[in-house]
């Protein structure tokens, strides 16, 4: 069963490559808000779930999967205000059945708010004003190109999808050893210390809930990309977050990286994080 699921996860990537879909590599909500909005409506109307049976209705009502050679994200911290940050977190956590625990110790988060002081703490300099130090940004899994987390996993329950660089999780295979949590230099991974289900406000039927004793993290919305929609946080960010193909010279992320000075978290570790920050 877990093997089947894994095959499916891999297949999802392979199929999207083989489908010869014209790669949609530009996904920047700010530059084309209407486009994204339409996409969302379309998706809601036609393909709310991934059904295993034959497609209902016309095949053309299904979106082509979004594909890339190397997905990457650019976060413009200048555009992140409190409300935007909250919207992004909320969009991700609601959509992905991320539970909310009252006790900090049991906490699970895929994307979260952190001040500069912690997010980029090795770059803290004494003359920073408190204002800069406590400026907020969003942190999530960096989908590193050289991920230490997948390297240490003794079961391949977490692995890098070579087609597009996503770092994936197989919740049915994970033994809960938490070695990946130890090896991630960014604190991106959470462990289910307790049964998460009673702590989910409203369970979304089209996304799996997890069980006690496994690790989870941001998936770069792999399930949405397969359905041709942008990641939930990108969509909710109102233009503060861009998402696209790093290997495509015409993608929005490439343009942003060419035009702005960006930083990455702990670049000296050689993990090649794929979330870039404009500061």
């Amino acid at each position, binding site marked *: 069963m877990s093997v089947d699921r894994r095959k499916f996860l891999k297949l999802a990537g392979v199929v999207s490559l083989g489908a010869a879909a014209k790669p949609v590599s530009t996904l920047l909500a700010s530059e084309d808000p209407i486009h994204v909005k339409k996409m969302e409506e379309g998706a809601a109307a036609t393909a709310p779930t991934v059904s295993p049976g034959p497609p209902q209705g016309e095949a053309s009502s299904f979106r082509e999967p979004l594909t890339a050679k190397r997905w990457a994200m650019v976060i413009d911290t200048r555009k992140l205000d409190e409300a935007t940050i909250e919207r992004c977190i909320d969009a991700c956590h609601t959509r992905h059945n991320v539970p909310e625990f009252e006790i*900090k*110790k*049991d*906490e*699970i988060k895929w994307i979260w708010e*952190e001040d500069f*002081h*912690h*997010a980029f*703490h*090795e770059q803290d300099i004494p003359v920073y004003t408190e204002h800069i130090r406590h400026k907020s940004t969003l942190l999530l899994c960096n989908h590193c190109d050289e991920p*230490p987390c997948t*390297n*240490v*996993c*003794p*079961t*391949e*329950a977490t692995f890098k999808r070579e087609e597009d660089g996503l770092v994936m999780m197989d919740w049915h*295979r*994970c*033994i*809960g*050893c*938490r*070695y990946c*949590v*130890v*090896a*991630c*230099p*960014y*604190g991106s991974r*959470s*462990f*289910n*210390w*307790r*049964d998460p289900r009673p702590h989910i406000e409203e369970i979304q039927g089209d996304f799996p809930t997890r*069980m*006690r*004793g*496994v*690790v989870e993290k941001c998936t770069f919305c792999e399930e949405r990309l397969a359905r041709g929609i942008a990641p939930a946080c990108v969509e909710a960010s109102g233009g503060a977050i861009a998402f696209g193909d790093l290997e495509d010279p015409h993608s929005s992320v490439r343009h942003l990286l060419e035009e702005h000075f960006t930083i990455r978290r*702990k670049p000296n*570790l*050689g*993990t090649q994080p794929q979330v870039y920050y404009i500061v």
Partner: protein
Amino acid sequence: MIEKAIQGGKSYYSWLALLVGIMLIGAYYWVRQFTEGLGITGLSRDVTWGFYIAQFTFLVGVAASAVMVVLPYYLHNFKAFGKITILGEFLAIGAVLMCMSFIFVDMGQPFRILNVFLHPSPHSMMFWDTVVLFGYLLLNILISSVSMQAEKKGVAPPKWIKPFIILSIPWAFSIHTVTAMLYSGLAARPFWMTAVLGPRFLASAFAAGPALLILLAMLLRRLSKFDAGDRAINQLAMIITYALGINLFFVAMELFTAFYSGIPEHISHFKYLFVGLEGNNFLVGWMWVSMLLGVSAFVLLVNPKTRKNYKVLAFACVAVFVSLWIEKGLGLVITGFIPSPLGEVVSYVPTLPEVMIGLAIWALGAFVVTVLYKMTLNLRERWG
């Protein structure tokens, strides 16, 4: 041969009953942990490994230290270790079983543990650690049972076992080296990312393990007719002295490197250990006790007069064992997480269920070692 294990007096049985009692309490808490989740421990998103994995790490050292009696006996034909060797091998079996139990209770999905073998991942140090530990357990069971059988029949052990014994020597080094690699190859955790971690693990293991062995030999001397011999004990004491000295030297090197280089993320962990960070000082008292015991034991051991006084030696062995248990069984693992990679200081203190489950596993180890030792004693009493 098993029947030898069940011939014992009243105190023997009350000791076993006590151990079973502790195991039952631990079992109760483990069932709770299994049904409620690891949330009943003190672990958290930031301090994700703690008491269990730390005990595992310490006990791998105890298991590996059997090599300190096996190696001189088989490679250098050091006859004085003739009687104590089997004690070392049995101690190794008990210790490896404890290691495996600690891994098992730390898993979020313990019954999926076979996935490690179903999907072997040679890039993971945890995979290799599991492989070498299993191998070490099998080797020790094989070697000790074959030599016990031979002893029972009153003949020399068969020749074919020799290669296995020789193999067990590098294998013992490997279990602790691979355990160190579990930690020392992680860019995320500067506290562990030091090339001296493996050597340090071996040094502290070769001090703590033989210290326990001396204490057990002294205990057997009082409780039974079994006598490991003064020469064996003196030689072990010598080994402990060197290993402890080397370990203290390594610790000093680590402190120098961290503080002289002045790299904040290296210093901060040591600060947490020895003075506390942001008011968080759970380990501070423990660590100073550990340092004090370690240094004073070294002073007592280096001096031949005090080392050869068995009362002082017994004290020194207790001091060595406790000191290194604190260093590895508490300090080393927890401190790697504090502060977190984001520079946050999070507190971790093991909870009651966690400690009880841990105690139960120690009781399990004590049970196994007691029964195996008893078996040996009964056998030897019969054959003289």
